[in-house]
């Protein structure tokens, strides 16, 4: 029987910023080869969780295993298997696209003979061919996401963590990114991404976890979490946002004759 250890295991993650508790005992299993969606309202702790899972932010409590390796005990080994696309996209902007990819590759001690062909292919597939020789500081938002995705995929990680990858992205770039990600999971790798956009999560993911108030409130396949309605309804219900008051606002609209 094949080893079906989950690709990512989070247990009891806690993070406080001063008096504010961002993540309060979050536990999660992400099965291997799944396209896993992490959804939740603003401030639910998704970004903080992803940063703790990828070794960029130290948790106050709890543990993270990626592909069976404890991320905080053996950081270097774990990070070799992880690719990250963070939300705020702080890249080394004064490099061209190609230079950036080369840099990321060399940081991971890849050999230049591996980096060149992979970088060239990634640039072609993501449609960045014209911009490969332009400084990243001059890229549009969509292009930045794409080059950051290329950098995250360059070393062929087993698990890819994406924080709001489709935020403010035009549909064409979004389609390209989706195709690349689907090809990636098709090869057996795992993708964990956070998003607000329910339609996207419904269309791409096979499993989803709803996070609110720093903890997981529901998890399972998309169908299980969705129940009979749409994912958006389920989400709104789980997160506890009731019917918004529609009383008032009488002055809104064209002036009465």
């Amino acid at each position, binding site marked *: 029987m094949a080893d079906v250890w989950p690709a990512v295991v989070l247990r009891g993650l806690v993070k406080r910023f001063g008096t504010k508790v961002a993540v309060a005992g979050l536990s999660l299993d992400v099965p291997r080869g799944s396209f896993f969606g992490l959804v939740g309202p603003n401030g639910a702790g998704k970004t903080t969780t992803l940063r703790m899972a*990828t*070794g*960029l*932010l*130290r948790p106050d409590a709890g543990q993270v295993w990626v592909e069976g390796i404890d991320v905080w005990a053996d*950081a*270097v080994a774990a*990070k*070799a298997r*992880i690719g*990250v696309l*963070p939300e*705020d996209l*702080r*890249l*080394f*902007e*004064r*490099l*061209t696209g*190609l*230079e950036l*990819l*080369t*840099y*990321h590759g*060399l*940081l*991971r*001690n890849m*050999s*230049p003979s591996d980096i*060149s062909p992979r*970088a060239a292919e990634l640039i072609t597939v993501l449609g960045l061919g014209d*911009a490969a*020789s*332009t*400084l990243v*500081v*001059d*890229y549009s938002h969509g292009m930045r996401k794409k080059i950051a995705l290329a*950098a995250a995929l360059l070393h062929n990680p087993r698990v890819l963590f994406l924080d709001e990858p489709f935020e403010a992205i035009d549909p064409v770039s979004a389609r390209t990114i989706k195709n690349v990600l689907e090809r990636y999971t098709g090869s057996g790798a795992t993708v964990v991404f956070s998003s607000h956009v329910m339609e996207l999560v419904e269309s791409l993911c096979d499993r989803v976890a709803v996070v609110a108030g720093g903890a997981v409130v529901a998890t399972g396949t998309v169908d299980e979490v969705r129940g009979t309605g749409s994912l958006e309804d389920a989400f709104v219900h789980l997160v506890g946002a009731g019917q918004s008051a529609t009383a008032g606002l009488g002055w809104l609209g064209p002036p009465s004759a």
Partner: protein
Amino acid sequence: MALVLIRLKLRLLANGLRGSTMRAVAFTLGCLYAVGLATAAAAGFLDAQHDVTNLGIAVELAALGVLLGWAALPLVGFGSDETLDPTRLALLPLRRADLMAGLLGASLIGPGGLATAIGLAGASVALLPPSPGAVLVPLAAAVQLALFAAVGRAVVTALSAALRTRRARDLRIVLVAVVGFAPEALRLATGNAPLTDLARLAHWAHALSWFPPLWPARAMVAARSSHWLASVAELLGGVATLVLVLWWWSRSLERVMTTAEMPPDATVRAPRGSEPLFDPALGFLPRTRTGAVAARELRYAWRDPRRRVQVVSGVVLPFVLLAGALGHGSLHHHLVYTALIVAFMAGSNRAINQIGLDGPAYWVHEAAGQDLRADLTGKNLAVAVVTLPLTLGTAVVLAALTGGWAELAVTAAVGAALVALLLGVGDVASVLLPLPMPESAANAWGTQSGQGCATGLLSLAALLVEALLAAPMVVPALLVGGAWGRAAVVAGALAYGALAHVLGLALAVRLGSGRGPELLERVSPRQVG
């Protein structure tokens, strides 16, 4: 409507100070400083009430200085309100007149406006003539105040209309830094020529006060000397200038609010060789993590405006010092040793906050698995590649000029050792006290009230430590003579410098290992509200 904008400014000011006590303290100190300066000036004017000629000169010079301040300080980032950026108000249905009145009024609120008002009030009282023409002076003062504010706003708006491309903004950062250097550089080069001769100043004052925005000040001075016709003419001229400046400002506002930012000009760098990152000039670097970090740092030294400023300051200032020294002293052999100052100044400021300079992008290094030794070695390599040839080159030039060839060997060795030592100390400082570089691209010095203090203190502390550690190496070099003595110094210095570097690097790696996420947190700038 104008009042609304003024209230907006006040509210933004208050909220901005609420964010951090550091900033509130710095702001209060700034206000006190400005008001204090203005009160001192006003008192000075009142004191000199009866010495009409000198008072006139003083007022005109002060007006010139204040005008330059209003025009130039917002560019450097002091007192510039990004919060009252007209593009933020572009969507509101504001009449142009309302907008301008509001922005003008808002610009007078704050330490700058207050200080200028106090200074002008003092000057008015001092210059009040004894006869019916007395009304001219306060009128002129009011027009002058309006002109100061209008020129300030007009210059900032015109510039922001011009700075629509990323390249122009980068250039501005570098230019501002260079301009910031100019007075200091001039002083070092000319060696503190005293400017105490007031009569000579008079000549300058009169020449410069012909500049139209200063005519109301001239009007005030003329009124005091009872030159009524001249005074009225200059006052009317001042009003006309005010109208002109407002018209110019209005046109710039139009341009800023209705034209879009130009699409980023693609700085296409033709792929010149088969190797990105290393071609064309950096082929000598190893194709490893260390080499990659060094290559990036070297490319950034030119491509990133903030680092360009650092490089400029590290490289140019020592040369200015040198020019000054050469100009004044005789060409003694010992002058070759001043190349060591070049090494010290060029190396020190680039070694201190190496990780902080990466800023939030440091997450890339952390996500690839922390390897502090490779990263720091790469950064050190980049600094050495620039500093060592510079030092050696300076030493050779000095040796050629002064004939101090014997001193050259010692200087070269001690210089190299000094750079190694500076890098070792810098490594430890970078890991122990990383400081975030604020995001504001407008301010090349990367200072934000309390932040500036921290950076300054760190630099000072580091300089002290470096000087102390370098002394055992440099002092013997300066004192010793004779071939054997020099050989001993060369060997000793090289060993000492190498040891200091190795120990510093090892200590830095020990201190930083496993603390990557904490380092990342320290170098990502806090939300500046």
